[in-house]
């Protein structure tokens, strides 16, 4: 591969990773509990847990910015910035969720769940727009981030049900393995496309190192345990708990790795030679700014 100086990015460290870990889990949890509670509304602690997770993620990323007191500037560029869109959705997510929970209004809770899904999508698009990092700009990362967020949200909800003494919901034990299969497929697709796209060797090596753990401990084992919990009622709570914990922590581990370790920069290269005066593309700012998705 004609590429050199592909060093690891260090601009986004564990603080950014935590935003993707907790934010992804929390936002998906809102969606999961909203749907799982229909036709009613979720218990307040479950909703608060989701908001705390999202809030913690945003707090840690706030710790990373160089000028934290200017945080309101993050809302200035909704036309093209997925970071602005993520922050804007978060601004709506908190009050809508709280209002839905406090007033026990299923329609508002569902709206909050949809906002959670949009928040999760924004996180995926934030990575996709990072053109300097080949492992982030790979289009398959969108499905991976969304599917892993949904898995994590489901896992936390199962843990919540177990800890709160609620009965395990059959639907959740069916949903979790389905989502795990989707996540495993997304993970495989993501890796294969990175390999085909000639991502930096160091990136591929790090992803290869976590592949077996992610696939077997993070997806296949919890899927099997969830199936056991479903089929053997007496084994339900412990099997469900282990399945949820494995699904949750493997997702966090994968995202932490992608953000902080498998994030080698594009590097420099010698391009394909051309001859003659180039066709000139005018600067995009000569046109009025418009919304681009």
């Amino acid at each position, binding site marked *: 591969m004609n590429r050199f100086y592909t060093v690891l990015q260090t601009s986004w460290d564990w603080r950014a990773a935590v935003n993707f870990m907790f934010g992804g889990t929390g936002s998906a949890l809102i969606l999961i509990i909203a749907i799982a509670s229909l036709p009613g509304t979720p218990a307040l602690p479950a909703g608060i847990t989701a908001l705390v997770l999202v809030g913690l993620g945003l707090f840690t990323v706030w710790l990373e910015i160089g000028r934290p007191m200017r945080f309101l500037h*993050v809302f200035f560029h909704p036309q093209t910035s997925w970071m602005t869109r993520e922050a804007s959705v978060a601004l709506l997510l908190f009050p809508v969720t709280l209002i839905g929970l406090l007033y026990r209004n299923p329609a508002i809770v569902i709206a909050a769940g949809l906002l959670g899904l949009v928040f999760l999508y924004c996180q995926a698009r934030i990575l996709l727009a990072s053109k300097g990092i080949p492992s982030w700009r790979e289009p398959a990362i969108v499905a991976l981030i969304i599917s892993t967020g949904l898995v994590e949200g489901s896992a936390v909800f199962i843990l919540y049900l177990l800890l709160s003494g609620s009965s395990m919901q059959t639907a959740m034990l069916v949903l979790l393995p389905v989502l795990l299969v989707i996540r495993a497929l997304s993970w495989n697709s993501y890796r294969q496309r990175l390999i085909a796209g000639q991502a*930096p060797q160091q990136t591929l090596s790090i992803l290869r190192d976590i592949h077996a753990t992610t696939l077997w401990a993070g997806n296949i084992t919890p899927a099997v345990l969830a199936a056991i919990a479903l089929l053997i009622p007496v084994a339900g709570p412990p099997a469900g708990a282990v399945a949820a914990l494995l699904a949750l922590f493997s997702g966090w581990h994968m995202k932490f790795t992608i953000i902080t370790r498998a994030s080698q920069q*594009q590097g420099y290269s010698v*391009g*394909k030679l051309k*001859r003659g005066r180039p066709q000139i593309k005018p600067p*995009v700012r000569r046109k009025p700014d418009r919304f681009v998705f």
Partner: protein
Amino acid sequence: MTRYVMVADLNRCVGCQTCTVACKHTNGTPPGVQWRKVIDVEWGEYPDVERLFMPVGCQHCADPPCMHVCPSTATGQREDGIVTIDYDLCIGCSYCVVACPYQARYKVDNPVFAYGDTPMESEAARFDEKRIGVAQKCTFCADRVDAGLAKGLRPGIDPDATPGCVNACIADALSFGDIEDENSNVSELLAENTWFQMHAELGTETGFYYLWDQEPSGDTDDE
């Protein structure tokens, strides 16, 4: 209209880093920050080895990823194509740093000086608190360009209207000018030579062209 671009002739560049030093001198950048630098590239296996020196920095893309991702609108673009950063708007989120495919952006969270915590007289005189905690990068010496234009000078021709790195180059490897002017120095260089834009496949349409005469090797070292 005008679009300023830079042309680096890799056949001429000797890797002396004079442009790097000139940039640091002109822009007062702290240790570890190099808006302009020259990378030393070797590839192949003995005895078939190649080496080139490649000046790198902000490529002032026509379609800059850094500007699109910036949540604060701090990163902007002038009509003449120069990509800018408004230090008063930037929140220092580093999104532009990871969005830039050219590793051109820096963020310095605390003042850094060449010899510990105490700045030299020259460092103290040029220290700019506005640059702390925000993104920074090559500006194509936009202040010099603007000041030169105000005096009726021609960027790329008259030194007082030309980026410091171009003025300093000992091998005449760096050129600066208006690519939308068919008769400009940079237009003529590109018309008469083979050239490439780095990572053209990303569609950024860089404002930085490299003159070079060898097709990219398939076995260049990756890391």
